[in-house]
């Protein structure tokens, strides 16, 4: 590219200004990437939810339970292929900060419904046979350094048993969907039902059912809620993605918060870079006029200005992405599982780079158009 030397010579004209602009770009990109991965973490449940799954909760709220007897009634509804159920345990492993989700699961039907969460067959069989057995997601196992055969003590903090429940780690599951949840801890619902106080016995936190076809979702949901209408325990049936979205909303309107902060970052960066480019172009009015006088077209001049802002955006953006890639896993680890896994996917990286280039183009556009429209005669008169 013939103009490369001219572009880079102009860029390095004010080195400190260049470094500061690139620095502000990089920092803004780190913040933007962090916001993007947090948003992605909260919406991941929605994105990877099975289209052919429904979740049934107590109509009053998620913490209210439903009878185990509902399972057989649900199975009679046409279009329902399989049903499984879960209860939230909410125990503490050593310290409260070691949070991870623990579920009492229905061993018989869990794998059929949650088929994307894969456990090696031998490990699963050991789990089925072991009343105190447990299976944990690979992420949590890695976090605590657990391996199959370990004894895991978890203190009950919700059900008033005031005791520590000991589990044998029989298996480790992986998700076969990219970004799938590998933080859960499962143990047998029968063991849970044996140990909890009578008021919670035979009670279910939520049901998850698999449909014959996703097209049946609306009909089946209506049929289930209709079946339990006017009973002492009415139900609310929704798609798994709607359930996941509702769950994420418990943290507040994360999307709005992230969009707001992201917009502030975008416009601040736009003003900083736009101002830098405007000053840079104004300082070179005479030089740009000379370029136009000797035959550089208006488009060439616009190209030169845009190329400068795009190079700043590209370098600052790339630096920001490298910093983000280094920092985000550390931040995720420091959060101790309080947030869903912060995953910097290729899509998010691409989004970050596009964001940088968009800001670069936008910030160079106005000064570039100004330079393009500048009349040579007027500019030279000002020299």
């Amino acid at each position, binding site marked *: 590219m013939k103009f490369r030397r001219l572009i880079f010579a102009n860029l390095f004209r004010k080195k400190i200004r260049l470094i500061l602009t690139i620095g502000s770009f990089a920092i803004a990109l780190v913040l933007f990437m962090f916001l993007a991965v947090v948003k992605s973490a909260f919406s991941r449940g929605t994105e990877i939810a099975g289209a052919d799954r429904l979740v049934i909760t107590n109509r009053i709220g998620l913490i209210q339970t439903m009878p185990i007897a509902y399972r057989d009634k649900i199975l009679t509804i046409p279009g329902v292929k399989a049903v499984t159920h879960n209860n939230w345990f909410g125990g503490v492993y050593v310290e409260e900060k070691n949070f991870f989700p623990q579920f009492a699961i229905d061993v018989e039907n869990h794998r059929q419904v949650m088929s994307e969460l894969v456990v090696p067959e031998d490990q699963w069989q050991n789990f089925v046979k072991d009343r105190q057995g447990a299976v944990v997601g690979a992420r949590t196992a890695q976090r605590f350094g657990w391996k199959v055969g370990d004894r895991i003590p978890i203190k009950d903090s919700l059900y008033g048993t005031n005791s520590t429940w000991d589990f044998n780690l029989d298996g480790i599951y992986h998700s076969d969907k990219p970004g799938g949840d590998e933080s859960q801890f499962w143990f047998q619902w029968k063991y849970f039902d044996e140990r909890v106080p009578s008021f919670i016995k035979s009670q279910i936190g939520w049901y998850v059912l698999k449909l014959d076809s996703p097209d049946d979702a609306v009909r089946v949901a209506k049929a289930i809620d209709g079946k339990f209408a006017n009973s002492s325990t009415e139900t609310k049936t929704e798609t798994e993605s709607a359930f996941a979205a509702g769950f994420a909303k418990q943290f507040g309107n994360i999307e709005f918060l992230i969009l707001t902060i992201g917009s502030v970052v975008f416009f601040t960066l736009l003003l900083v870079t736009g101002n830098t480019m405007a000053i840079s172009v104004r300082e070179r009015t005479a030089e740009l006029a*000379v370029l136009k006088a000797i035959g550089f077209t208006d488009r060439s001049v616009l190209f030169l200005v845009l190329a400068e802002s795009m190079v700043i955006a590209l370098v600052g953006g790339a630096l920001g992405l490298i910093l983000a890639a280094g920092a985000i896993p550390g931040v995720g680890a420091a959060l101790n599982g309080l947030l869903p896994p912060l995953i910097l996917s290729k899509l998010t990286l691409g989004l970050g780079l596009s964001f940088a280039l968009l800001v670069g183009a936008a910030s160079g556009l106005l000064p570039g158009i100004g330079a393009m429209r500048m009349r040579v005669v007027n500019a030279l008169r000002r020299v």
Partner: protein
Amino acid sequence: MIRVDGRGNSSSLIKVRGLNKTYSRGGEKIQVLQGLNLDVDKGDFVAFMGPSGSGKTTLLNLLGGLDVPSAGSITVDGDEITHMSGSKLTHWRARHVGFIFQMYNLIPVLTAYQNVELPLLLTKLSKSERRKHVETALGVVNLADRMHHYPRQLSGGQEQRVTIARAIVSDPTFLLCDEPTGDLDRKSADEIMALIEELVGKYNKTILMVTHDPVVAARAHTTLHLEKGVLVEGKASPQTVMAGGAA
């Protein structure tokens, strides 16, 4: 042969007919050039003199395609430039005009070589061909040994020589010089004028120059004075001298 009576022959390199330029300033119309005629042949070296505000630079800008006249026509080497679109005029300038400014107007972050190479970046020449042209141009202005110096490392006279090299590197049809020695001491001014004379004498370049300096103007083949928006050949009128144009 330079003529200002509008009766030049058809072989003139530059032919100006009935040139008018009017500016609006604060709602008032100021007529700078009024029906100006000019014929310049290839290899001519003409100096324009006149008091400040007489329209010398305006005339140069019009001849160089940097500005458009209010009326009249300018034809260069058979191309009438007065009705060309902005982009066509830009391409025409790149091919036909070399500019030499009083303040040199070099790009400070580029070396002498890179500054001279600028007009060639707009051509289809290869890198090695561009190098050959740049080295030749810098050789003509005796700055081959300073090609990798930045403008701040050169004297005013040397900077102006780089500007001249930049103006001639693409072998334009004619050169326009706006006060080429205006920012130089007498010795450097003499060297620059000797170089400009060499471009005319040795390389048969056509040069149109604006100057306030009668000593510099005297080195041109012809000196034309701008009076009341028209060109007058020969010595300046007493009014022009009084106004400082030929002082």
